């Protein structure tokens, strides 16, 4: 243990610790969890010389206001985020994708995400967090992970186990490009929907609803008509599956999703679009575009190469 710590002055909304998540527990009902936007998670860690699978602070809409105590340390924020750094009563505006050095008494105030949902705060070192099933990712629904599986709260103190000796500050030019078209593959119950329902799904616009969180994204818009059965026998789900319950409004499964579900699956979001999908804030317009499996695989490969390329520039 060190004498370096964070005091949470204001927790923000849905502020949790996340890492790579848990990838082997669906069979007992424990979801993937982990950072929602994987690319921004990885970049944040790289900017502060952390291992790529280190824990970061993930926030939605509004981030935390934090006071740091201890030796010099680096931090970086990724996403599309407005934040400031306060040093000796002087406040400067911070830039994403750039690491900064802070020292005893400095404050980081993450005001909001800009037309997006999630942002990441990485700190150069290792936070003292509890691991469950090899991950500190917080799942607030099941109260699993670090911080007793709960969101961060005002007045909390988080200790560092160690801080990084490499304190080089780094920067990368990167802009989160936003998308409206989400590419999907046909779901296993695609034929449950009427011709008109299928057309609605691929041609009409949907709006991301306020009732969206780390578990799922609910969409509003034209109803998708089911002509076979609005229930199926509960079966496994994965991130990105789009279920359509009886009311005809699609729900996209996100990282903390229930591991099984009983609504027909009309489609599954291609992995290449997942990071950008989760960043679509309530009110955003969304349109689905069909692609086949081999295109989805190729596109993901390219996306992954681009991510690795970005990381290698840091």
């Amino acid at each position, binding site marked *: 243990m060190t004498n370096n710590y964070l005091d949470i002055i204001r927790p923000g909304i849905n502020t949790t610790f996340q890492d790579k998540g848990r*990838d*082997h*527990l*669906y*069979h*007992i*009902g*424990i979801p*993937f969890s982990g950072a929602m936007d994987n690319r921004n998670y990885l970049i944040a860690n790289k900017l502060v010389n952390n291992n790529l699978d280190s824990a970061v602070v993930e926030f939605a809409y509004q981030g935390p206001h934090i006071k740091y105590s201890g030796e010099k340390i680096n931090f970086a924020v990724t996403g599309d985020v407005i934040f400031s750094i306060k040093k000796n009563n002087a406040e400067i505006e911070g830039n994403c994708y750039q690491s900064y050095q802070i020292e005893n008494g400095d404050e980081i105030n993450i005001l909001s995400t800009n037309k997006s949902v999630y942002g990441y705060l990485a700190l150069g070192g290792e936070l003292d967090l509890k691991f*469950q*099933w090899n991950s500190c990712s917080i799942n607030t*629904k*099941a*109260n*699993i992970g670090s911080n007793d*599986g709960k969101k961060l709260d005002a007045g909390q103190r988080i200790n560092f186990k160690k801080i990084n000796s490499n304190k080089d500050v780094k920067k990368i030019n990167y802009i989160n490009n936003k998308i409206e078209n989400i590419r999907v*593959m046909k*779901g*296993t119950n695609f034929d449950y929907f009427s011709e008109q329902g299928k057309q609605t799904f691929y041609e009409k616009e949907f709006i991301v609803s306020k*009732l969206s969180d780390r*578990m*799922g994204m609910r969409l509003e818009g034209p109803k998708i008509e089911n002509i076979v059965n*609005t*229930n199926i*026998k*509960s*079966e*496994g*789900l*994965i991130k*990105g*599956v789009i279920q359509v*319950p*009886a*009311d005809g*409004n699609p729900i996209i499964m996100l990282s903390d999703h*229930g*591991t*099984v*579900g*009983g*609504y027909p*699956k009309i489609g*599954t*979001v*291609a*992995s290449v679009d997942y990071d950008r999908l989760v960043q679509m804030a309530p009110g955003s317009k969304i349109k689905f575009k069909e692609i086949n*499996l081999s295109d*989805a*695989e190729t596109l*993901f490969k390219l996306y*992954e190469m681009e991510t690795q390329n970005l990381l290698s520039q840091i």
Partner: protein
Amino acid sequence: MIKNISNLGDAALYCDFGNEVNKSINSQVIKYFKTIKEKKFEGINNLTPSYNKLIISYDLKKTTFKEVKKFIEKINIEDSEKTNSKTLEIPVCCHENFSIDIKRLEEILKLSREKILENFLNKEYFCYMTGFIAGMPFLGDLDENMRAQRLETPRVKVPKGSVALTEQFANIYTFESPGGWNILGNTPLDVFDSSKEDKPNLINPGDTVIFKEITLDQYKNYND
């Protein structure tokens, strides 16, 4: 046996064992699940067995649909030993505070509250799978006259401990979560305990569960 393999998105295999729900198909699914888990194929991560489907997730950075499919098609399922299954009694309180959907059930099933409870309680149910939320058991089968569909729009919050019905199944919400099942009562028992990393689930596939009614007072004092 697996009747068909297709892709669920670009990072999972959808293994279809048919549409029937019974113990024999379900135990085939469980056998595949256990065998695949033991073989540790590079890239395969999450496995989700259910009544008659098995979903095999993989890391798209490490493998592809084609490779995993080939591997699954070559697998021989040996008759694995019977697993240790147990019978558990689960206390449930069906006081009006908890039986949120009793009116809905009375209307759909055309049965009185008393009859619904009589049909539901003190019977043996088989655990087909666990999931949706951590540790939630899927139990069956309910009597023919007890089968109701899910809610049209799922609730955003179902209280922890809720005992709920849909079609021929019953389940227990191990903590507060969204959900669309018909809520009949509530158990004070912790069905999922994350502090036990080895065995977080009280009820596991293959187990038998019997619901025993308790009063509101017994419910309140249960954890004292």
